[in-house]
């Protein structure tokens, strides 16, 4: 380790500047010589804050540059092997170039631009310690007489300059040795994508690392690994054309001071090693097949997961990734119920064996009352009215329930349990209550509630009448295309409403409504979720846009309390059927596209197509051209669909909406997304029972057949292919278009796509035109030309599209 000259006022001779050796400490002092060699305080100046002897600044600045260089050119700064193996696997031809590009970015990526901040601080602190007299002398360089004064300060300044120059030299050498400016080309799209994925993965690791809050014993080499992984992210950001400083500013996790002071520790402990060209060659010669198969598999899974799932959700706001097939923690509720149970007390309790014969609530309330009376601090609550309030219920609830046969629901039992725990913890603060007694009381009351819950299997909620046949878990895990189809249908024409009971509790209701001609679809849905067809009803509905009245078929069902975490409504919300409260207080549907992925992160296209088909059946139209269009008032949702299925742009159509309640018209945005033939064909190929009105035989959809718009149909009628071929011998396509009053490009596309004609070269028509001009009007060519022109003009006059 480097030894510093001892800072002593006895030996300093002339003024020198010293600094606390702790990086980042602000203690900088001018060390003056002692008068007569003994008069004065602080003979060996120490840092007031850290109580460690100071070191001369000109010696210290060299350390900082050492640390900075160790950080910038450390072997660990070369591309990580894991990333290299990924690149080697995905784009082996790009591997060598990738390594060179990475090394090219190392200095900037690992934080070179922020070195100057620290050096600047030291320099300025140094200069601030100089007296005006010293500076004046220093500025008069040429006055040889005074040149001998303040040699130490002069030497210090020179040392700072030398260190700056040294840094520049190293940066330049690195540039000259490790960079081939002619070969360093921009990244390919594939490599860029791969780096983005690696960066995302590294960010997750970093996040995990930074979330560790408890103290841990971490070795210095382990710390270095953490630092390097974070710094390597900076290099990766550079390669992606991003600023590594930007990220640091954002997180403020590793400042310039942090970075280089820590690297100084690594440097002094011999953990750093400057990389050379041979290190790079070694890296390239590394056998990547050594990487275990398992690791490769993990990498691949991560790549596809990030590429298809996480990445999508990170960049597209209107979707969420639903990973299917992951085991769910169903024990959570049970665990909650076990907490605070007093086992001995539990064994003493004897709830009625047959709840249908005896009044279980009487036993329940009496047991609670008796138990409360045993504790002085609870005696005041031992009446039905007070007890109800103590348990967080309305004041007459328990008294009313006492003589009713209906079992208290899970919802209310949860409220009671939570209130006991909360109220008892407040009692702990009272002076005259023993903690043990209070805890005992809490555990006993909780035990009574839980034994009641266990013995009499209560309903989930008090007010919601959930049909016993309802498959409440139907949307919990979407595993079949049919489930995904119904989910899509609910996204389009379904809803989740909140119903408030007179008692104040709220419960969810879900519904689906379609035109009466599509009633069969709702009936099938009803059957799929375990309900009978008779639940599907009919009613009239007003179209707010036109004011017209339509007959609608609908299904509405209660699915449980809003406080219940495991209801069908909650599953739908988790899938993305979310709502937002608008300014006017109304709830507005804000769908978020669920992107179904398997555990490995692979997109499940069949499920996605089924979902889209469901949405299309609800809020879409099928066109004659075998294409389709879906609509939504949520731009982000359609954009997410567009991205997932790689479709065209989302269009915005403004609509005038009529509100019969206020008799006003207002403008609303309606977005639409065009579904091409291939996506419609894919959707129709799914083995799903869907809406007949919008179904097509997949075989009937011919992908290479031209799209026949109304204008094209008219053109086909007035310009049969034989006739058009004849005309094209004398008239250019642009002339025909002009005479017919059709757009030039429309005509060209019609000829190429519908008739598949090979059009003549422009030169042919120029030549023909020249010939016509050269010959007389009565010439045969001119005669035919004029006749055809007249004919085309007549057709053009009948053009219904020429406004």
């Amino acid at each position, binding site marked *: 380790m480097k030894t510093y000259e001892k800072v002593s006022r006895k030996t300093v001779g002339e003024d020198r500047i010293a600094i606390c050796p702790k990086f980042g400490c602000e203690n900088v002092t001018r060390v003056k010589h002692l008068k007569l060699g003994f008069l004065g305080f602080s003979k060996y100046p120490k840092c007031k804050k850290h109580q460690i002897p100071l070191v001369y600044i000109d010696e210290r600045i060299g350390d900082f540059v050492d640390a900075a260089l160790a950080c910038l050119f450390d072997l660990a700064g070369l591309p990580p092997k894991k990333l290299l193996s990924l690149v080697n696997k995905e784009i082996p031809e790009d591997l060598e170039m990738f390594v060179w*590009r990475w090394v090219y970015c190392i200095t900037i990526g690992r934080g070179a631009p922020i070195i*100057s901040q620290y050096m*600047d601080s030291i320099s300025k602190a140094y200069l601030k310690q100089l007296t005006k007299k010293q*500076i004046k002398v220093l500025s008069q360089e040429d006055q040889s007489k005074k040149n001998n004064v303040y040699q130490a300060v002069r030497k210090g300044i020179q040392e700072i300059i030398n260190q*700056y120059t040294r840094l*520049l030299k190293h*940066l330049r050498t690195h540039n000259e040795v490790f960079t081939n400016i002619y070969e360093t080309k*921009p990244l390919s799209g594939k490599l860029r994508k791969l780096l983005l994925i690696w960066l995302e993965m590294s960010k997750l690791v970093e996040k995990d690392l930074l979330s560790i809050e408890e103290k841990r014993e971490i070795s210095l080499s382990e710390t270095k690994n953490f630092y390097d992984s974070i710094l390597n992210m900076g290099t990766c950001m550079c390669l992606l*054309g991003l*600023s590594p400083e930007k990220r640091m500013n954002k997180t403020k996790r590793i400042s310039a001071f942090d970075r280089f002071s820590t690297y100084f520790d690594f440097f002094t402990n011999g953990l750093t090693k400057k990389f050379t060209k041979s290190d790079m060659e070694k890296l390239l010669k590394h056998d990547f097949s050594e990487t275990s198969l398992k690791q490769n598999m993990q990498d691949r899974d991560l790549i596809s997961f990030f590429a298809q799932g996480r990445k999508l959700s990170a960049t597209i706001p209107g979707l969420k990734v639903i990973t299917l097939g992951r085991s769910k923690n169903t024990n959570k509720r049970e665990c909650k119920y076990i907490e605070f149970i007093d086992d001995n007390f539990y064994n003493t309790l004897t709830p009625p064996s047959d709840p249908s014969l005896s009044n279980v609530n009487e036993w329940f309330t009496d047991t609670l009352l008796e138990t409360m009376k045993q504790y002085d601090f609870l005696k005041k609550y031992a009446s039905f009215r007070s007890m109800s309030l103590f348990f967080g219920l309305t004041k007459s609830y328990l008294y009313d329930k006492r003589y009713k046969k209906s079992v208290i629901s899970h919802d209310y039992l949860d409220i009671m349990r939570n209130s006991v725990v909360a109220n008892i913890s407040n009692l702990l603060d009272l002076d005259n209550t023993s903690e043990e007694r209070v805890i005992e009381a809490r555990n006993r009351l909780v035990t009574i509630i839980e034994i009641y819950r266990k013995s009499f299997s209560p309903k989930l909620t008090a007010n919601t009448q959930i049909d016993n046949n309802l498959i409440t878990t139907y949307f919990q895990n979407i595993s079949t295309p049919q489930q995904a189809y119904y989910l899509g249908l609910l996204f389009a024409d379904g809803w989740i409403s909140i119903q408030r009971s007179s008692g104040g509790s709220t419960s969810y209701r879900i519904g689906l409504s379609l035109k009466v001609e599509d009633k069969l679809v709702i009936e099938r849905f009803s059957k799929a979720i375990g309900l009978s067809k008779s639940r599907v009803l009919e009613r009239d509905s007003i179209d707010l846009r036109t004011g017209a009245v339509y007959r609608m078929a609908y299904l509405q069902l209660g699915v449980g309390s809003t406080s219940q975490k495991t209801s069908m409504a909650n599953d739908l919300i988790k899938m993305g059927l979310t709502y937002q409260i608008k300014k006017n207080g109304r709830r507005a549907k804000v769908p978020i596209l669920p992107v179904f992925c398997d555990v490995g992160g692979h997109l499940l296209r069949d499920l996605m197509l089924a979902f889209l088909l469901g949405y299309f059946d609800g809020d879409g139209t099928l066109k004659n051209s075998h294409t389709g269009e879906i609509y939504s008032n949520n731009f982000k949702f359609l954009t997410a669909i567009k991205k997932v299925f790689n479709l065209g742009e989302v269009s915005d159509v403004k609509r005038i909406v009529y509100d019969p309640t206020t008799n006003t018209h207002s403008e609303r945005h309606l977005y639409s997304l065009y579904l091409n033939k291939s996506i419609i064909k894919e959707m129709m190929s799914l083995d799903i029972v869907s809406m007949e009105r919008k179904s097509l035989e997949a075989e009937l959809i011919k992908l290479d057949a031209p799209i026949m718009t109304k204008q094209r149909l008219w053109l086909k009628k007035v310009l049969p292919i034989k006739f058009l071929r004849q005309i094209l011998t004398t008239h250019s396509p642009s002339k025909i278009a002009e005479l017919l009053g059709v757009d030039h490009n429309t005509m060209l596309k019609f000829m190429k796509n519908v008739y598949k004609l090979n059009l003549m070269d422009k030169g042919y028509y120029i030549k023909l035109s020249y010939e016509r001009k050269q010959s007389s009007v009565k010439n045969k060519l001119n005669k035919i030309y004029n006749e055809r022109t007249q004919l085309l003009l007549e057709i053009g006059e009948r053009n219904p599209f020429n406004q």
Partner: protein
Amino acid sequence: MNFHNETSYLEFEEDEIFLSWYEVEGVRTITELSRQIRTLLKYKAAVIQYRFRSNHIYPISTPNIKFLETKNKFESLALSFIKLLRNIKDFTGNLGGGYQYLLDQASSNKTENLLLKKLEDITNHLFIQIHYFSEQKISEHPYFFKIIVLLAQEVCETRKYLKKQFSGFYEELGKNYHNLEKELSILIPSRVQEKVNERKKKAGEMLKS
């Protein structure tokens, strides 16, 4: 000391203490060195950013009036600097010799002394403006970026002669700028070359049609 300071060095000019130090020749220069390093590395970062930018067309951003004003000032200053360099070159036929002649004559000859002072003044201002541009999104102005780096190289060369104490530093800085300039000349083809390429492309298209 503020180790987390990431603001432009120019802001320190407003600091009273800093200004007083700044006025003193020799002391000002040393503080300037860290600024020089920062400027160089910022430009290097901008080159990397330009090289690996994701989209080859930069979005049209709203014009920064201060940037444009400084750019105009910089251009006129650069012009005066080049004129000055021509005058110096005329002394001996080459720039190195010209600087040496100027330094030798400055103590005795008033005109040369004034010229030397003017040169110092211009280089100072140029460096401050070069630093200002390094803090802007300079990679969005590739042609101007190229000019700055080219000029920075020349200013370093001048400083190498004017500041003997820092000659090693400025020489090294100049070499670093030279490397940057080489990179930029490959990355950003000159406008004339671009026009030639454009014409060739057009001619090719015409021949094909």
